[in-house]
C-alpha cells in the first residue's frame, strides 16, 4: 500500500477508534449498565457518574501502565538475571557493578555533571535573561542563545568536535593556544578537565532553555516591588539578588531540577565525543556500553539511574505544581 494512504488509514482508525471508544463506552454506561430510568433511577445516575471518570481514564492508564510501569518492573526483574535471561543471580549484577572501577568512575563523573551543568546553565540563563531584558537588541541575543536548543546532542557534539580539534587550523582552543605560542593539545585527553569540556556542550545547549523560562519569570515580577526597593535604597545588585531572585526561586528550582533530570539521561555527548574513553564515562553512556555486551549489567545501570533521578523528579514535579497554583 502507498505509505501516504497507509498513514491516513492509521490516523483515521486511531482517531476514530478513540472517539468511538469514548462515545460507545459512555453510551453503554448510560443506556445499558446504569440506565437513567426505572425504579433505581437516582442510584443509577450516581453510579454512572462515579464510574465515568475511570472509564474515560482507562486508555491513558492502560497505555502508561503498559509502556511505563511494566518496563520499570520488567527491567528490575530482568536485572536480577544473567545476560541470557535463564539464570537467576539475585543482586549479582549490582554487586558486579558497584565493585567495578569503571562504574565508580562513571558514577563520580556523573556526580560532577549533576553538580556543574544544572548550576552553570541556570546561572548563565538567569544572568542573560536579566541582562538582555532592557536591551533593544535583547531579543536577537536571546534568539541566538536559544538556538542550540534546536540542535540534537549528536549534532552539537560534532560542532564542538571542531572547536576542540587538536589542530590550530580547525580547533578554536588550539587556535587560541597557537596565538599565544603554546603547543597543540587534545582537550579530550586532558585528564579530569576533559569532563568539563564535555559539560560545556550541554551547558551551551541548556542555557537557552533556562534563559527563556527565567526571562518569563523575571517579567512576571511586579514592577512595584522593584520600585519600592529602589526607594528603599537598594542598588541594582541588591535588587537582583535580594528582590528579584527570591521571588522567582520556585521557577529557578523547576529549571534546575529539569536540567538535572536531563543530565542523568544524556549519553549522546560522551558517546559521540570520546566514546567513554579517557575517564569521561557517565552513567547513561556506561549503560549504552553494556547494552550489547556481557552480563546483562545494563539493566542494573538503568535501575541505578532511575533511583538517582527519582528524588529530583519528585521535587521537580512538586515545585512545578506549586508554581502552577
Amino acid at each position, binding site marked *: 500500500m502507498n505509505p501516504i494512504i497507509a498513514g491516513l488509514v492509521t490516523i483515521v482508525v486511531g482517531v476514530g477508534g478513540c472517539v468511538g471508544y469514548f462515545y460507545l463506552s459512555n453510551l453503554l454506561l448510560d443506556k445499558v449498565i446504569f440506565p437513567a430510568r426505572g425504579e433505581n433511577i437516582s442510584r443509577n445516575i450516581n453510579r454512572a457518574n462515579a464510574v465515568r471518570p475511570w472509564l474515560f481514564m482507562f486508555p491513558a492508564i492502560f497505555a502508561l501502565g503498559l509502556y511505563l510501569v511494566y518496563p520499570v518492573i520488567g527491567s528490575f526483574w530482568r536485572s536480577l538475571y544473567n545476560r541470557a535471561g535463564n539464570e537467576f543471580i539475585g543482586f549479582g549484577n549490582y554487586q558486579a557493578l558497584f565493585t567495578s572501577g569503571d562504574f565508580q568512575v562513571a558514577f563520580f563523573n556523573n556526580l560532577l555533571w549533576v553538580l556543574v551543568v544544572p548550576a552553570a546553565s541556570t546561572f548563565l540563563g538567569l544572568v542573560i535573561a536579566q541582562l538582555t531584558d532592557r536591551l533593544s537588541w535583547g531579543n536577537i541575543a536571546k534568539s541566538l542563545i536559544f538556538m542550540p536548543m534546536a540542535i540534537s546532542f549528536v549534532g552539537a557534539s560534532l560542532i564542538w568536535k571542531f572547536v576542540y580539534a587538536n589542530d590550530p587550523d580547525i580547533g578554536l582552543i588550539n587556535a587560541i593556544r597557537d596565538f599565544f605560542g603554546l603547543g597543540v593539545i587534545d582537550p579530550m585527553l586532558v585528564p579530569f578537565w576533559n569532563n568539563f569540556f564535555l559539560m560545556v556542550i550541554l551547558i551551551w545547549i541548556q542555557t537557552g532553555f533556562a534563559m527563556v523560562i527565567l526571562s518569563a519569570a523575571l517579567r512576571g515580577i511586579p514592577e512595584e516591588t522593584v520600585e519600592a526597593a*529602589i*526607594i528603599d535604597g537598594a542598588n541594582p545588585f541588591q535588587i537582583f539578588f535580594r*528582590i528579584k531572585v527570591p521571588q522567582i526561586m520556585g521557577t529557578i528550582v523547576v529549571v534546575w531540577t529539569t536540567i538535572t533530570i536531563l543530565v542523568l539521561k544524556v549519553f549522546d555527548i560522551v558517546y559521540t565525543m570520546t566514546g567513554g574513553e579517557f575517564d569521561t564515562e557517565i552513567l547513561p553512556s556506561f549503560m549504552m556500553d553494556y547494552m550489547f555486551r556481557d552480563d546483562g549489567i545494563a539493566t542494573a545501570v538503568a535501575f541505578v539511574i532511575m533511583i538517582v533521578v527519582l528524588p529530583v523528579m519528585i521535587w521537580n514535579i512538586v515545585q512545578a505544581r506549586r508554581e502552577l497554583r
Partner: protein
Amino acid sequence: MSSVEIENVHKIFGTTHVIRDVSIDVPDGSFVVLVGPSGCGKSTLLRMIAGLEEISAGEIKIGARVINEVQPKHRNIAMVFQNYALYPHMTVAENMGFSLRLARHSKDEIATKVRDAAQILGLSNYLERFPRELSGGQRQRVAMGRAIVRDPEVFLFDEPLSNLDAKLRVQMRAELKEIHGRLKTTTIYVTHDQIEAMTMADKIVVMRDGVVEQLGDPLTLYDRPVNMFVAGFIGSPSINFVGGRIARTDGAAKFLSHSGVRWQVDPRVAEVAGGTPVTYGIRPEHFALATDGESGTLPAVVVTVEPTGAETHVVADIGEDRITAVLRERVSARPGEKIHLRPDPAQAHLFESESTLRIQPSGEAH
C-alpha cells in the same frame, strides 16, 4: 520634615507632554492631595518627586535642596504604592526593616524601629507573618510601616487605598489622617477619589491633562471652583450644569436656560456676566423642596427617587435639563410626578460656557 517645592516642572515621554509647567508649594508638615481623573499626570508627578521618573524640565526641591539629579535613596522620601508592593518573600518585620538593613543600621536599632512602627499601626502580632498571610488592610498597614520606619522627610502615597473595599477605605482614611497628625511628616498623596481628597487634605491640587486646574484648601475648591472641570470633579453627587444665557426682564436679571426656564441668579454675578452664553452650576444639596406658588421655585418632573436614609436623591427634569437634587426631607413622589424645587441663587455659580471659567461675583474676595 521638609517642605517640597515643585517649580515649573515638565515631563515629556517621547512626543507626549504629560506634565506641563506645574508649580506646587507643599509647606513643611502639610498634607497635600493631588487629585484628578486617570491620565491627568498626578501619579507621574509623584513618581518624579520619588525619583522613579526623570524630570524633563523645571526643578523639584525638598527642603532647600534641588533633587533633580539626586538618586531616589538619597532623597529621604518614602513611598506607599497602590498595590502595596510588599516583598512577598520577606516577613512583615523584614519588609519594614529592609531599607534600614540596606542602610546598614544595627540589628537592635532595626528591631526597635520596626517594633515602634508596628505599635503605631497595630501590627505587633503580625511581625513574623508573610504578606500572603495578611488581609488587604493589614498589607496596606505594612506598606505604611515600611515608610514610617525610615522616618523620611516626605511621605509619598500613590492611591494607597484604592485596592481596599469601601468600608476599610473609610477606616484607613481616618487612620492615615490620624498618623499624619501624630508624625506631622510632609505628605503628598495621589488619588482619583475626590472624597479622599476632601476629607484628608490640608490643600488639594486638582489636575487635568498635566496641568494644575486649581490649588487650594478643600472648602475653597468646593465653594469657589475656578472652572467647570473643578466644579464637576469636586463634590458627590456632582454639580448640575444648565446651559443658557443671562436675560433681563423687568429690570431683574435672570438666567434663561436653553429650554426657556428662568432661574434666579445672584445679581452680583449677573452684573458681571453680560450677554455671552453662560452655564448655570448648582450643587445637588442647594435645592430645597418647595410648594407651588412660592417665589423662586421651579417645576420639575421626577425621573427617579433614591432614598439613602439620611437624605433623598431626586433626579428630575427642569425644562429639558436633567438635574440631581439632594433633599433633607423624605420625598414620596413617583417618577413622572411634578414637584417644585427652589435652587438657592446665593450658592449657584455661573460659568462662561466657552472658556468654562467661573464668573466671579463683583466684590468676592479672591
